[in-house]
């Protein structure tokens, strides 16, 4: 079980994947608004999304877990 952490603080605009989706490194998994830009968050490893951990439209901090990946 791996957790993907947000690389930036900002507002979580939307998730780009659902629970069950298979991601590989560099899959865009969410959009975070930070420094007045839409910053895509990229997956760092491969796996299947088992849970989304933050609420869309909420403030998130750098290092906050965004989703959980199962193998």
């Amino acid at each position, binding site marked *: 079980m791996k957790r993907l952490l947000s690389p930036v603080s900002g507002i979580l605009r939307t998730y780009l994947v659902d629970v069950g989706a298979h991601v590989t490194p560099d899959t865009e998994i969410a959009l975070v608004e930070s420094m*007045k830009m*839409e*910053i895509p968050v990229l997956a760092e490893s491969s796996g299947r999304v088992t849970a989304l951990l933050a609420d869309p439209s909420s403030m998130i901090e750098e290092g906050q877990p965004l989703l959980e990946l199962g193998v």
Partner: protein
Amino acid sequence: MSWDKELDEVARRRELAFRMGGADKVARQHASGKLTVRERIEALLDPGSFRETGTIAGSARYDGTELVDFMPANQIAGHGTIDARPVAVVGDDFTVRGGAADASIYEKLLYPERLAHDLRMPIVRLVDGTGGGGSVRTLESKGFTYVPALPGWHVLDANLTRVPVIGLALGSVAGLGAARVAASHYSLMVRETAQIFAAGPPVVAHAGRPVTKEELGGSQLHARNGTVDDEVESEQDAFARTRRFLSYLPRSVHELPGRHPSDDDPRRREEMLLSIVPHDERKVYAMRPIVEAIVDRGSFFEIGRLWGRSVIGGLARFNGISCAVLASDPYHYGGAWTRTSSEKLTRLVDLADTFHLPIVHLVDVPGFQIGVDAERAATIRAGVRAMSAIERSTVPWCTILVRKCFGVAGAASRPAGRLSMRYAWPSGSWGSLPIAGGLEAAYRAELAAAPNPQALRAQIEARLRAVTSPLRSAEKFSIEEIIDPRDTRRLVCEFADLALHALTPGPSAQPYRP
């Protein structure tokens, strides 16, 4: 009468030294996924080039005049070559007392440092142990306690201003071992087999909750907070990256890096550069492909990929000339300077200035990171340190404004007090504050009083946008030249050719800060 008998005794002791901590300890070293120190040195250096010093240093036990037991000191030291260039090397032997200081001979640890300093060659430290003062047990054997000191640390420190220093963490390293890794120009750790801490889990557990070695000092922490520059998957990767890092640098500050042969056309143009930056300023693009497109093909050696991530940094060649490359990464705070990316900038600029590498900076900087997190992290403190490093540097700079250049951090993207060649792409956009955000601050009263603030905001924005064309800046020589992005490689290669003749060997006026 020959001296064969005496030489036989030397050979016997060498054989004992080569057993290291004994077959059991060597097997345990291998079982934990680690090479022995002698295997490491062999893998690092050119084959057959190692010249060992202090081979039979260690602690011996005698029965009368007869040697009955011998344990080698737990550092191996000497010199050899990497790509036919000399390099000093020192490695901890974890199979002897776990690399702890009580089985070391301090003079032997210092010898390779002095060798590197006085004969002007890089030094590679293979760290796998604690180093420093050792166990509390020594209180019983010594019968007294002492005020801690770091004899010889001044040589390690001086080396940072003289020769390339590389620190590799290859096991659990604590105390002085951790300091010897971090006091370097380039450091890395092996994922899962290496950990770095001021004090290990048993000491920490005494002070609070129990933690594992990986939690306390694994690469998932330290390759992401800048304690070390990079993490690697294996010791072989660590040695390969060490060899590659050294290939960009001179042997010491007293020489220049010189020019490597290159068969990549300096006038090569990459079509994708024309469209890679989106018109919509809210959209990001990938900076690394831009770096790869303009440097000599395959020559970009990235340093610190996982920390200080809004700045991409590393070494590369332009028409065979070694340069330091800095570039913004819009995927991290839009390229804004954070505390850690400012620290990364400081280290890379110091590195470039110490070893006479011209600096190429690809800029997309909206300013310093803003917000509560940024203020809590003391961003401006680290930021002005980076600004000082940039301002005090003396190597030639070439700045390419790829997109944004705003605020104090944008202004600091090159040294202000001397010439820096500068080009802007047509996507360039600059000012004290970006219109988004800056508009609300500047026209707050008007917007508050307006019957339809939205409409007024749009009206004002249209007025401001009309004068933000980079061409208007070029009219006033605020930007020197606007270029076709596809010509970037040609122009930077021409800069590197000019810069090569404007470099002065010798110690840098600004001593390197680890």
